[in-house]
């Protein structure tokens, strides 16, 4: 599902046409409308590369009184001089609510909207999930910090103890040596 987006000849380019039409058309009307639109392209001598019908979709704001609309995305290879003609036809066409012509970049991957949506649904995290994950991470971090602090505390205490012990040992040794020295009879002071 990714035909090459490099134009086959020097005179043609690849264009992406997005067309929005009302969702409340009857099936017969819709078929007629699609035929009409594709007629514009074939009239201009365009070659279809891909077609992606999104189907019914909610809109972010009402367009000509419609809160829902159908979307179709076409990928056509055609002569750049014909784009103006097609746009003119689309503008005049009664059922086209909005249309947009885009020149996709060279390395563009044509993906089917339904596939992308299914993938997104599988992989995305909901807001709640993100929140719980962040909370858990925070708790983990705190626990780790606490453990680290405790370990450090214990370590510092141990070193203190050993130091004190050493001090006592050294004193004892010194006193023993002194006594030995003092009690040594061969010494003549």
């Amino acid at each position: 599902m990714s035909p090459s987006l490099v134009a086959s000849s020097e005179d043609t380019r690849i264009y992406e046409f997005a067309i929005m039409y009302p969702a409340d058309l009857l099936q017969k009307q819709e078929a007629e409308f699609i035929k009409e639109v594709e007629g514009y392209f074939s009239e201009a001598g365009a070659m279809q590369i891909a077609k992606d019908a999104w189907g019914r979709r909610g809109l972010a704001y009402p367009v000509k009184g419609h809160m829902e609309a159908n979307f179709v995305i076409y990928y056509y290879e055609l002569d750049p001089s014909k784009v103006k003609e097609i746009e003119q036809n689309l503008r005049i066409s009664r059922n086209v609510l909005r249309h947009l012509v885009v020149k996709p970049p060279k390395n563009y991957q044509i993906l089917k909207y339904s596939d992308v949506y299914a993938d997104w649904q599988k992989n995305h995290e909901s807001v709640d999930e993100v929140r719980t994950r962040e909370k858990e991470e925070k708790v983990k971090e705190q626990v780790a910090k606490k453990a680290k602090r405790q370990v450090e505390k214990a370590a510092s205490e141990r070193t203190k103890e050993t130091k004190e012990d050493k001090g006592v040992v050294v004193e004892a040794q010194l006193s023993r040596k002194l006594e030995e020295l003092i009690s040594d009879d061969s010494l003549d002071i």
Partner: protein
Amino acid sequence: MAQKQQQQRRPDPRGKKCPFCTKASTRYLDYKDYPTLKPYTDYFGNIRARYYTGVCLKHQKMLRGAIEKARFMAMLAYRK
């Protein structure tokens, strides 16, 4: 005391990296890709400033173009 002051300070919003530069340097942002565009608009539908999102200038310009196209096709709201 010094530690406490450090904890109270807010994180610097300028310390963020551009999310489009980090993942294989995005060359083109698609206006049809709703889930990637949505986080860069706020509740009212305005485009979030670069200062807060950390997007670099190159990608912010691409983002603006994509969002404006998406708005025209009624995928994103102009104003909520």
